[in-house]
């Protein structure tokens, strides 16, 4: 039994924050209130924030295949340090997670090694090759929480249509990367003046809209539960809005990088800023922030993509895409609160409650009966990020040497402390 006393309780479910106490027992939240009695361990929070742990969709842990980039042990530690209590893993490993056997391997490895909860996703098509659907029913029964080919867009619309139809019949959730595959092929920047100046191959922001429009037409036809992994352009928003107005089972996310950085950050060809889709204009970034605040975009994910030094120490065009972000997700997202774009409960709706709802999980709440997955953090604590201090095996963060504001002091998963204090 543990009592968190004198905490600033951030409850996204009621959209409220208040100073109070919270008691956990046997891995669950049992009581919140003021002046609760104190048998058992007492943690005095001194007025810092206590919120539901982050549920992060779209995390890449590089097991199997590239364990030198990230393992369940290091990724789990990074998550704990970032206040992420559930990571939903991507299947874009080597080999791809496209069979129940591979999925079981990941689940067992995660159970043994990861400090936080791990829920695996499986590929939608075999080898993410876009030719044949995976054994969706088997994979569901083996524990897959969603199906995605990640950034390998299924270009053959007939194959996609069949896979979505089959998934719909089983009630499976499909997560897609909206992007017109031919238009975006080979691009590493968003087209415009700046890409022309740098002389880099670029993609129009319209590719995202076109990819999304195609997918949404298929959602309309099949009724599949569909989540767009990253909406990053203003151009894509009207399509999303129309689909939701029509009552389609559609949700959308965006990445922390597209919320907090823009294409000007690519200056000097710094490959740590090379992500997929590429960073967008400031106008797009602001439109995405607004869409997030308005609820048109449901959630924020880290899109944690570890890359080793060798993959990044290359000319911009040839360098690997992606950035690590499990540990920087919360402090970077707090920029939105400090900039008064949203309140803390609203932010945790996007970080914890909405992703939990999407996957049908009981997490993301501070109400009695919810799992005791918690993050204790000081939203104001300032520091300069040193990438070498990160727990991830790979250190490719675009926030290296940035001034950050917001520090995670403790993380609990099912009532067990996994970060901070005497862990």
């Amino acid at each position, binding site marked *: 039994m543990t009592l968190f006393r004198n905490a600033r309780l951030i409850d996204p479910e009621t959209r409220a924050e208040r100073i109070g106490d919270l008691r956990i027992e046997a891995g669950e939240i049992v009581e919140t209130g003021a002046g609760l009695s104190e048998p058992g361990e007492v943690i005095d929070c001194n007025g810092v924030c206590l919120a539901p742990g982050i549920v992060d969709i779209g995390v890449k842990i590089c097991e199997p295949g590239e364990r030198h980039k990230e393992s369940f042990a290091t990724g789990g530690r990074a998550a704990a340090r970032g206040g992420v209590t559930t990571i939903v893993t991507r299947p874009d490993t080597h080999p791809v997670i496209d069979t129940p056997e591979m999925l079981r391997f990941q689940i067992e490895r995660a159970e043994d090694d990861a400090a936080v909860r791990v829920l695996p996703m499986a590929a939608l098509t075999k080898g993410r090759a876009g030719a044949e659907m995976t054994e969706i029913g*088997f994979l569901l029964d083996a524990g897959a929480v969603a199906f995605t080919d990640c950034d390998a867009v299924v270009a053959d619309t007939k194959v996609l249509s069949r896979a979505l139809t089959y998934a719909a019949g089983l009630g499976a959730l499909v997560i897609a990367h909206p992007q017109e595959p031919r238009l975006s092929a080979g691009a590493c920047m968003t087209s415009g003046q700046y890409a022309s100046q740098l002389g880099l191959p670029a993609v129009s922001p319209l590719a995202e809209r076109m990819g999304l429009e195609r997918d949404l037409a298929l959602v309309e036809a099949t009724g599949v539960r569909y989540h767009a992994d990253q909406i990053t352009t203003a151009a894509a928003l009207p399509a999303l809005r129309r689909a939701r107005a029509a009552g389609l089972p559609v949700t959308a996310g965006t990445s922390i990088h597209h919320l907090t950085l823009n294409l000007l950050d690519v200056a000097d060809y710094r490959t740590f800023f090379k992500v997929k889709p590429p960073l967008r204009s400031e106008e797009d970034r602001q439109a995405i922030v607004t869409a997030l605040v308005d609820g048109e975009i449901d959630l924020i994910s880290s899109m944690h993509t570890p890359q080793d030094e060798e993959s990044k120490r290359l000319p911009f065009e040839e360098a690997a895409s992606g950035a690590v972000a499990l540990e920087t997700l919360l402090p970077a997202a707090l920029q939105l609160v400090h900039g008064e774009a949203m309140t803390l409960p609203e932010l945790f709706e996007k970080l914890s409650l909405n992703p939990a709802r999407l996957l049908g999980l009981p997490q993301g709440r501070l109400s009695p009966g919810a799992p005791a997955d918690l993050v204790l953090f000081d939203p104001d604590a300032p520091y300069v990020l040193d990438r070498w201090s990160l727990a991830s095996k790979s250190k490719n963060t675009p926030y290296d040497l940035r001034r950050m504001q917001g520090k995670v002091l403790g993380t609990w998963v099912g009532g067990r402390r996994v970060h901070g204090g005497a862990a």
Partner: protein
Amino acid sequence: MFEHRHLLGIEALSPADIVAVLDRSERYAGAPDPDWRTRLSGRTQINMFFENSTRTQASFEIAGQRLGANVMNMAMQASSIKKGETLIDTALTLNAMHPDLLVVRHPNSGAVALLSQKVNCAVINAGDGRHEHPTQALLDALTIRRRKGRLQRLTVAICGDIAHSRVARSNIILLGKMENRVRLVGPKTLMPAGIERFGVEVVHDMAEGLRDADVVMMLRLQRERMDGGFIPSEREYFHRFGLDAARLANAKDDAIVMHPGPMNRGVEIDGELADDLTRSAIQEQVEMGVAVRMAVLELLSRRAA
């Protein structure tokens, strides 16, 4: 009583027609009787199969022979079609030979009906594309009626590859006309669009689909009709949509299992269950097939006479 010139589909039959065929078939069920031998004597029955089918063709051939008809088989893939003759030309040529009964199977939906417009004799559809397979539905109905004692107010689950199945379509129509509750069960990719409008329930979960069913009709996964990608794999298909004893436990205790054959054991149906004569009516379906076809041949040749 049976006023039709051809048997092109169940669609055109009234409930009274269906009962008439089944009642007539009942006389032909069981061991052959020498008295039947003269009923179609002097009649010519031509089986034209534009698509392979050992079982249906044999069933029609035996039916005709038991009634004393002169039965001739034409394997159409091997003949004039290869030489570029159109279906209508083939029909006109045959018509000139004055057959009494034409039994036709064709890979294209609607082809048998087209042919029937060009000939003077009775035409029996032995399966056209994804459209209809009326004698199969009639033999299924006869089997159900014998096993269940009635052909009304039953819950029938038709499971599997509905999209590519003419058997399913004919059965849906027949069972609907006879006021049964029809439930279609299978993956969404194998459900034809708009099938709900046939007055059936559509379910994508076997346990739910089989609940309280009186009859469980399994369909063959028609791999040869699939241009790839309808299901992830056969093992996944069996895992989710295959019929075994555990799944069958969702149906009524006295539910019967049917399959039009040929079966893919371990793909749509568990081998042991298929062979369990207390539950499986599959052998009886084959037997009823001959009886129904005899009845149909007799009814249509009487009209033609």
